[in-house]
């Protein structure tokens, strides 16, 4: 099992993605830590790999950035060669191939989500070993463990875009309040046929909840 090397930057993280009819909503916290030191309190873990395909990164910051860069290159090449946009399935398959073939050397937990005109909205999770799972919604990162119960109870398959955004903001905020490796702001991205809409929720605007 790969470990973070001493001094290596981790993304403690809470990340999640939710599918709705017509698009997906991705959410993440913004804390990047190296041990107890928070090296970036406003990092952007929602990374664009193509016009309507984003990924959420957790694990080693270096590993996930490198893998995302390779996939971004391949998706640009795909568009040039095929004359059409790649599907989310293709993007997720590329991530999966890299993560599986290099599983001994990588520590990357990735969520791939987006919209394409063949399959519509899709969410794929690629955990540490390099397996791939297509799901209606998924969570990852150290903070996700604290909110599985909350998310399982509240998720409904037929939510609207705004309901999904509320759901994501509430869940990530709960995770942040319990997980020391997650914190900062909540970044949200909503992807539909019309494009990508990005939102940010600052610390003073986090949803109301019991804070002890």
């Amino acid at each position, binding site marked *: 099992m790969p470990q973070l090397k001493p001094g290596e930057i981790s993304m403690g993280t809470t990340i999640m993605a939710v599918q709705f009819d017509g698009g997906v909503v991705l959410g993440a916290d913004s804390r990047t830590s190296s041990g107890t030191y928070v090296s970036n309190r406003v990092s952007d873990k929602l990374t664009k790999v193509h016009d309507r395909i984003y990924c959420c990164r957790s694990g080693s910051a270096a590993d996930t950035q490198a893998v995302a860069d390779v996939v971004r290159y391949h998706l640009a090449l*795909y568009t040039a*060669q*095929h*004359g059409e946009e790649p*599907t989310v*399935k*293709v993007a997720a*398959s*590329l991530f999966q*191939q890299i993560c599986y073939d290099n599983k001994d050397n990588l520590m990357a937990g990735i969520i791939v989500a987006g919209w394409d005109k*063949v399959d519509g909205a899709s969410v794929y999770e690629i955990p540490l070993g390099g397996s791939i799972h297509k799901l209606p919604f998924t969570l990852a990162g150290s903070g996700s463990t604290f909110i599985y119960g909350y998310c399982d109870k509240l998720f409904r398959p037929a939510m609207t875009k705004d309901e999904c955004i509320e759901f994501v903001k509430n869940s990530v905020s709960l995770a942040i309040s319990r997980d020391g490796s997650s914190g900062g702001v909540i970044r949200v991205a909503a992807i539909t046929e019309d494009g990508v809409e990005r939102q940010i929720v600052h610390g003073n605007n986090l949803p109301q909840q019991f804070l002890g």
Partner: protein
Amino acid sequence: MTSIGTGYDLSVSTYSPDGRVFQVEYAQKAVDNSGTAIGLRVKDGVVLAVEKIKHSRLLVPHSNRRIMTAGKHIGIASAGWMSDTRHLVKRVREESRSYTDVYKTKVPAHIIAERLAMYVQAYTLYSSVRPFGVSTLLACMDAKGPQLYMIEPSGYYVGYRGCAVGKGKQVAKTEIEKLDLDNMTVREAVKEAARIIYSAHDDTKDKLFELELSWVCKESNDLHVHVPQDVYDDAVQHAERSLDDDDDDNEMDDDEDL
């Protein structure tokens, strides 16, 4: 049409003063001397037909297929060196497999045609290898529908609605141009393809031949397969009957002269 490029035709890496690469043109001649192969792209599928010239009555029927399948949805018929064809088909199968491994989906027609063409073209660059003496007809069913490509020994490739290669290509092309391909179904196309092969076949040159017919269409579940026996028999009957009709027409003309 026949020209000898004295001195400039010894190696594929040599141009002639008028900008030709003779070795590639000679490879094309190998194609022109082989049995006819035709492809018809119609509204719901693609049909491939080959005039398989048999050099001996002892050959086991249906052995030594000239139409081969790659990646399940791709059909390959060719004219020229059969041994070269088998090598190219192996390559297409590998390319199709590697595409599916990476992208987890069936390779689209224009991608596999380009990959094959680039491979063939690579063999026209070096004096240490010879160009492939094969013209390949690639039939494929993908998300955009049925498609037909022809890849020549030079690596040049283009999409066609109907095309012919080999000995009888002139006769075949003339017949194909008369067809309304865009409005035909595969069932009709199979019969026409058989008829065209029979009419392009020159009985005086090679007596024995076997017709090979394949299709990729809705009826075959978008898989490339040799046509079912009943469709084959039907097509052969139609072809033989239309040949007899042509003979009958000729006889009538003789009577009128009297």
